[in-house]
């Protein structure tokens, strides 16, 4: 059974204008997230993952330009919306879970007040109900309600992450973007939080986008996965399919760089080189300088799309042909 699409992103391009030139951080990305589905976006740092998150919320710095494309959320295109119109969509339709290590909670306000603030910005007449809602949310993410009136610095890392999740859930959004949600936490806490997020997501029938550099995290919680390289999606498909039969050499390289607990044993390989400089990406397939299978085609021409059902990749030398 396929549910309705919640978020349809089509040919999204977002560039930064810097002194050194144009940085193509998001360069023609298209994907679709259905209700209740969770999408993972994976890639090395500096390949445009976080830029996608900021573009979807249209929280862009002054030097960013949304060049083209559309972001259709429940049928409404966010791209042409004004800042005021966009504001009413933020958090009620699309919200975000920030990294725990980041100071995404304001140090000078109580955590409860920061959630109430989000609620009151969107439901100005809620009054006392908003405090009730905060209690519900704390319950949902298993935080002690006595912490509602405490300051962020009194929280542990794991608790802070739960509070951030509670905050993201406050206005019952259709889709939540989680940018490296558990990166800074230790493995045990990381596992707990991921599982709880998954439970909450299923019980509320929400959609999620996980953004991570960690293949293991994505494998655990996502139904669909997209692999990003140099501002482009290079492979996309159901998680099980992509992990079992990766098409793009980059996906394979990423996977072999992480240990697998359940799968067969293999030597951990490190990927040579660094992600390309987005100011001046390599010609043809951007991955060719680091690719062991690169041919002349890879160096000169944009690779074609290889499709296997709902699993696709862009590559000249797809694996498994």
């Amino acid at each position, binding site marked *: 059974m396929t549910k309705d699409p919640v978020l349809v992103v089509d040919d999204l391009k977002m560039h930064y204008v810097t002194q050194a030139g144009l940085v193509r951080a998001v360069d023609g990305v298209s994907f679709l997230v259905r209700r209740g589905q969770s999408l993972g976006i994976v890639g090395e740092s500096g390949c445009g993952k976080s830029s996608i998150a900021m573009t979807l*919320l249209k*929280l862009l710095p002054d030097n960013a330009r949304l060049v083209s494309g559309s972001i259709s959320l429940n049928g409404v295109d966010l791209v042409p919306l004004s*800042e005021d119109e966009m*504001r*009413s*969509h*933020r*958090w*009620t339709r699309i*919200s*975000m879970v*920030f*990294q725990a290590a*980041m*100071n*995404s*909670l*304001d*140090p*000078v306000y109580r955590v409860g007040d920061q959630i109430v*603030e*989000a609620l009151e*910005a*969107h439901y100005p007449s809620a009054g006392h109900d908003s405090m009730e809602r905060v209690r519900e949310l704390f319950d949902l993410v298993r935080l002690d309600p006595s912490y509602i009136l405490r*300051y962020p*610095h*009194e929280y542990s890392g794991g608790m802070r992450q739960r509070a951030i999740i509670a*905050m993201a859930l406050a206005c019952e959004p259709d889709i939540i973007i989680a940018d490296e949600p558990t990166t800074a936490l230790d493995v045990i806490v990381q596992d707990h939080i991921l599982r709880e997020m998954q439970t909450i997501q299923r019980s509320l029938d929400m959609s999620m986008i996980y953004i991570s550099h960690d293949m293991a995290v994505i494998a655990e919680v996502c139904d669909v996965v997209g692999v990003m390289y140099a501002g482009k999606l290079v492979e996309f498909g159901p998680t099980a399919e992509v992990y079992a039969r990766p098409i793009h050499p980059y996906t394979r390289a990423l996977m072999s760089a992480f240990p697998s607990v359940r799968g067969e044993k293999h030597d951990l390989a490190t990927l040579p080189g660094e992600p390309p400089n987005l100011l001046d990406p390599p010609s043809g397939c951007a991955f060719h300088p680091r690719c062991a299978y690169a041919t002349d085609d890879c160096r000169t021409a944009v690779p074609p799309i290889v499709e296997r059902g709902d699993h696709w990749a862009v590559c000249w030398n797809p694996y498994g042909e």
Partner: protein
Amino acid sequence: MAKYLLKRSAQILATLFVFLSLVFFIVNAQPGDVSNFYALNPDVPPETRERLQDLFGVNEPLWKQYIVHIRNTFTGNFGISFSHYPRSVADVIMERLPRTVVLFMTATALSFYLGFALGKVVAWRRGGWFEYTSTVSGVTLYTVFTPWFGLMMIWLFAFKAGWLPIGKFLDPVLWRDAPVDANSVFTRMILTAFVVSIVVFGVFVVTAQRRMGRARLMRIVSIALASLVVVAVWIASGTAVFAWDILRHMVLPVVTLTLISFAGTMLLTRNSMLETMREDFVMAARAKGLPERDVRDKHVARNALLPVVTSFIFSLAFAVDGGVITESIFSWPGMGQTLVSATLTEDLPLAVGAFVFVGVFVLIAHLVADILYAYLDPRIRY
């Protein structure tokens, strides 16, 4: 927090001792003893001189003199002023200290408010014409040679236009047959200001829980009401005309001080805002869909406030120090002018007394800054 404040108090007390010792040794390094200064003054009779020698213990060994000096400081016993003979130094200072404090509290509060409000806007709209003009005019006023600027203000508004008095604390012609003396009127003015500020503070605390629009209305109404009551009471007491005279004399120095110092707060606020704007919680506040105004005022400005408040209290302390200049220009009879004139007339007891008081004032301001900082930053509070 108690521990933190205790630690800071101890530090400040230690600094006070170092400061007093420094004063003592500088004075002692002078040839002769303190009584010699009195000996040069024909107004001082020999008996008084001997009494003063006892007071300062000049015939005792140095360490005893030191203890006497510290004790005298704490009991406010600085001896007799040479240029204001036979008034005691403490008496002169007690008359002048409030004048200085009121002048500079008013000016610093105004310049802080102006600087913070402008700095907020400048940081938010970076690179526009508003930033350019306010930075250039702010810096010009900030680095202008203060005596010259004060002079131009006097020349323009008092000398040429004649709107305001040229200087000094009051108009002697008006006060010649006054039924009250200036100090008591001034004390009552300070009391009034104190009561009003407590009322205003109370109104703000009470309305803090209310919604924006209603809170603003309640604040405006209650403050208007309070000022009405104050004016009525002063007029009823029949001394309003004298209070008005003192206020008129305060306008020019206050405006001058505000204009020359707001740029410091403005630029500091701007830098502090720019740093805070890079914090993740600002991005989070935007993501939450808060209006830009709330993001700016509630999150960025509130966090950017921390370093600005510290500098505000410091500048309050140093306003008194730097106020030496303004007070001299406007002949405002405060601590600064007292220090300068005592120095110029070689009235050593008064100079030392005034100096010690300026130092103590600076130290108290630091302590207030620490308390305020601890209150504003929950990370220190607990």
